[in-house]
């Protein structure tokens, strides 16, 4: 398998190449010698219009928006294809360049359909943003626009609209360089050129296409028409889908979470994230999520007061089985809440699923915070191994009460069901569910809500041992208490 091309991740920090300083619109900026000129400008917060340049992809130089002028070079040239040299004097605010960018933007909009009311990208669309700054407000285009096939479902939750496409070729380069699956290409020549997919999308990173498309040509089917982006607020957190721990942002508002997008993270996931991670928000605001403590009355869960549960549990010997999806702080709080009382705590680790590494980001080990959990268990002197868990499960008797923390994302339900079957012997069974109430939980006596990954602040340790923050967004489950609250029941 080819060397995993983690963008910029495996690259050890090159010895700080000698920095060169250059002038951009009269402002002095510093950049590595020979590094991309446009990247240097963007890193220093200089506004340069660009569509086809993307830090994670190769240079195409086709949108012609990032044209700049250099003293001593009569012809304007695209800054994305230039490298930084010592003492360069670059300007992109001269009247000639301003007129050029304005004209080029009008060329981009020439055959662009007037779809803004029905386009999901409205609000974060590259054309809209630059139109405000560089737009020609009285367009002279009165001819018929070139029509191309619209609304196409190209699989993997991605919708294609070839008419909105501005042919910046970012998506074609993505399927060629990052996933090496060559699914997207530009057919035909001239202004009949059209983005097409070869049969359909098959790779696991297809929804990154939706993020890198600067316009509404590639939109997500899962998010289609769900919400307007200016009603959403982003929460920067970490994906708990597998042990890679990619940095992501979840767009949400008071009605719930709507989508997950990757955030550039130099050490972990670069610019991308896998498609499985895109669904981690679904259980947080789903209607079937447990909202209050409830009792199992012959198969139906009826909300009940927590204190009554506490009285039922009094006197039984408590045993805990934690999941690997909790944050380091939660483990610490939980173990401190036990206050050294003799109680058995086991760790349920999810089974390995699929290839252990798919060459880009996805990993088979689905335990988000395995290292954090193991460290916390070891610090508190508990056995976090599978044998320890089996010992607890086999030694269950009728006068035990077992608290099982249900893993938030269950890729493999039947492996979890074997655990549940083993807990049947316990006298009283309580499930602490952060996610949706699963049908398999019928055997439990009580269900107690605990916060999901989007409702807690804390850190998890990813496969490289780097700690990645989890941030709480708008919390909806006000009633749910965290694990340590139930830990205190030990000495009740």
């Amino acid at each position, binding site marked *: 398998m080819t060397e995993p091309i983690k963008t910029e991740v495996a690259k050890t920090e090159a010895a700080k190449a000698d920095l060169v300083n250059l002038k951009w619109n009269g402002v002095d900026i510093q950049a590595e010698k020979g590094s991309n000129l446009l990247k240097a400008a963007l890193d220093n917060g200089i506004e340069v219009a660009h569509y086809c340049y993307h830090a994670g992809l190769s240079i195409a130089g086709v949108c012609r928006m990032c044209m700049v002028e250099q003293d001593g070079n009569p012809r304007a040239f695209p800054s994305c294809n230039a490298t930084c040299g010592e003492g360069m004097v670059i300007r992109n605010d001269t009247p000639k360049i301003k007129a050029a960018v304005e004209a080029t933007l009008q060329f981009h909009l020439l055959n662009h359909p007037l779809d803004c009311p029905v386009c999901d990208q409205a609000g974060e669309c590259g054309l809209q943003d630059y139109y405000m700054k560089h737009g020609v407000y009285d367009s002279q285009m009165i001819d018929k626009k070139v029509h191309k096939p619209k609304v196409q479902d190209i699989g993997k939750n991605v919708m294609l609209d070839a008419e909105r496409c501005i042919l910046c070729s970012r998506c074609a380069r993505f399927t060629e360089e990052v996933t090496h699956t*060559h*699914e*997207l290409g530009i*057919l*035909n*020549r001239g202004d009949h050129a059209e983005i097409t*997919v*070869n049969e359909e999308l098959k790779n696991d990173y297809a929804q990154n296409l939706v993020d890198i498309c600067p316009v509404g040509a590639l939109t997500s089917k899962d998010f289609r028409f769900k919400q307007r982006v200016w009603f959403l607020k982003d929460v920067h957190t970490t994906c708990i889908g597998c042990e890679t721990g990619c940095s992501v942002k979840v767009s949400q508002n008071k009605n719930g979470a709507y989508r997950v997008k990757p955030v550039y993270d130099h050490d972990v996931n670069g610019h991308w994230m896998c498609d499985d991670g895109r669904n981690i928000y679904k259980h947080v605001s789903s209607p079937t999520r447990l909202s209050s403590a409830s009792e199992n009355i012959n198969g139906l869960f009826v909300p009940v007061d927590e204190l009554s549960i506490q009285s039922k549990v009094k006197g039984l010997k408590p045993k805990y089985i934690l999941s690997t999806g909790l944050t380091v702080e939660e483990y610490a709080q939980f173990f401190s809440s036990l206050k050294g009382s003799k109680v058995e705590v086991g760790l349920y680790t999810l089974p390995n699923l699929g290839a252990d590494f798919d060459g880009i980001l996805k990993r088979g080990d689905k335990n988000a915070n395995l290292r954090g959990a193991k460290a916390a268990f070891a610090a508190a002197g508990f056995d976090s191994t599978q044998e320890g868990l089996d010992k607890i499960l086999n030694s269950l008797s009728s006068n035990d009460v077992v608290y099982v923390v249900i893993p938030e994302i269950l890729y493999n339900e039947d492996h979890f069901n074997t655990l549940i079957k083993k807990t049947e012997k316990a006298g009283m069974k309580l499930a602490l569910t952060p996610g949706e109430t699963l049908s398999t939980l019928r055997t439990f006596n009580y269900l107690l809500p605990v916060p999901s990954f989007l409702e807690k602040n804390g850190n998890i340790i990813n496969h490289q041992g780097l700690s990645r923050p989890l941030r709480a967004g708008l919390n909806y489950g006000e009633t749910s208490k965290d694990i340590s609250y139930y830990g205190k029941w030990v000495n009740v």
Partner: protein
Amino acid sequence: MKSPEKSTEKTPTTNEPFAFSAANLETYKELLTRYDDVESALLPVLHLAQEQTGWLAENVITYISNLMSIPEIKIKEVISFYDMFYDVPVGRNIVQVCTNISCSMFGGREIYQGLLKHFDTGYLTPTRDGRISLQKMECLGACELAPCMRVNDDFVAITDLTSAIHKLEELP
């Protein structure tokens, strides 16, 4: 690039698998020796395939894609980019009429429209008997024969519509 009249609905894909004839396979192998990598031989291979089957259907694309291990989308891009590769069924004889400056000055466009009306067909769509496909082309590099026409692989000097129609009658 096909001109705007190109029909956008999916072209009919003949389903039985395509394969190079023995002779073509030999030329294919000889072609590979000419280049330092396989992709460079794509254009000559597509010419070869088109000479064998007339036009490049889905099955031809999949065959070449497996043969040269080039992604299918790359081959589709190349076929749709060049004027002389056809991804729609064409007639046995390809007739290209030049409609550029020097030839249009001597009636190239009227001849092209006249031929379309005479054979009652459109851009590249074969005539009913599948004999002729007319294609409107840009400068064919034979301006001294203006108005100039190319039938299959040779230039044909014509003076006006009637001489053009006369020349096309004799085609097999």
